[in-house]
């Protein structure tokens, strides 16, 4: 392959998508003719053109879907529910207090863990049965704390979005693990507890249905 050939291949490949796009892909007749001429004699470029053409056909043949009736019904049910969350709370509380409540609960969960974890000394020095019992207890306590967080999320509906919960709850706990505030031995059960807790993926509308 000469330098000229390589340059032509590069020029063609830069325009392959436009070339296969109907009707003219923004290329001039001259450009189209040049690409056709080149790809007729260059197997590699012809393969690129064929792939681009087949790709476009496949994409355009991909299915469109009708919205499932169950989705409409659930959305309708969600709309029928009064947006009770905010009304249940004192008028002045929603913004700051509600936004930070999960963080406070997460902090409480962390404190609970730390207290539980530190109560009976480092894991390494304990008999394994005792260490297991301590991990189990801490996990149980954490699950309890997280269930409060989850419940709070449901109560507050859209105000406490999953995004906030993730940043402040999972983030807080992860930082505590990173910094050694929470014993690393507790990290796996704690992560499992968070993963299994529905607060991670709370969808208020869905839960109301």
């Amino acid at each position: 392959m000469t330098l000229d050939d390589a340059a032509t291949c590069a020029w063609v490949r830069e325009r392959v998508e436009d070339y296969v796009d109907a009707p003219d892909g923004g290329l001039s007749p001259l450009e189209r003719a040049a690409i056709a001429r080149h790809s007729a004699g260059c197997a590699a470029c012809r393969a690129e053109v064929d792939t681009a053409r087949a790709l476009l056909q496949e994409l355009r043949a991909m299915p469109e879907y009708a919205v499932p009736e169950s989705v409409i019904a659930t959305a309708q049910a969600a709309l029928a529910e009064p947006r009770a969350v905010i009304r249940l709370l004192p008028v002045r509380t929603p913004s700051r207090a509600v936004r930070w409540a999960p963080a406070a609960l997460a902090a409480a969960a962390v404190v609970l863990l730390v207290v539980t974890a530190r109560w009976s000394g480092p894991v390494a020095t304990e008999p394994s049965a005792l260490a297991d019992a301590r991990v189990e207890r801490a996990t149980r306590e954490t699950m309890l704390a997280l269930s409060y967080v989850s419940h709070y999320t449901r109560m507050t509906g859209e105000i406490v979005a999953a995004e906030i919960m993730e940043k402040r709850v999972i983030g807080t706990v992860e930082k505590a693990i990173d910094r050694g505030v929470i014993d690393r031995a507790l990290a796996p059960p704690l992560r499992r507890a968070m993963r299994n807790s529905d607060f991670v993926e709370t969808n208020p509308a869905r839960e109301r249905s």
Partner: protein
Amino acid sequence: MNREFQRLAREHGGRIYTFALHALRSHEDAEDVTQEVLVRMWRHRENVEPARMHAWVMRVARNLVIDVSRRRRKRAAIFAEGADVEMLAVETPAGPAPAHSAERHELRSALETMVSELDEPYRSIVIMREIQDRSYNEIAEAMEIPLGTVKVYLHRARRRLRERVRKELGNDLG
């Protein structure tokens, strides 16, 4: 409210659901996104010009899809120890003539995965333009970017897909 809501939901729901399903490859997530968009659409319907409603719902849908993708990535990082995100195979709907061979079905599935794994904004543009056949203007409005930028992104997205197809599927597709 019932009849009007259902009319609007049917008018926009399919488009939202198709977009979310191709982007997320999970029926459950696509349903959640669609449901949330429909709820928001109804609550904000009086603030949105009817002529701009299509673009508005697609913008909301896209934002929610990006949120879900971001959450998946975060969870993947946090729960690196185990499989956290279930990427479900999206079933091809029962059509009148399912003439695809198993091999073809696999190719289609591989391609759908590649589309869903494109980075933003390429993923959204490919789905809206190539799969949903939306005009450049509609896409520009939905994504709040200039028309020229849509074309540039689409060109890059197609090229990325072609390069990945060549790399992973060789000549199987074309």
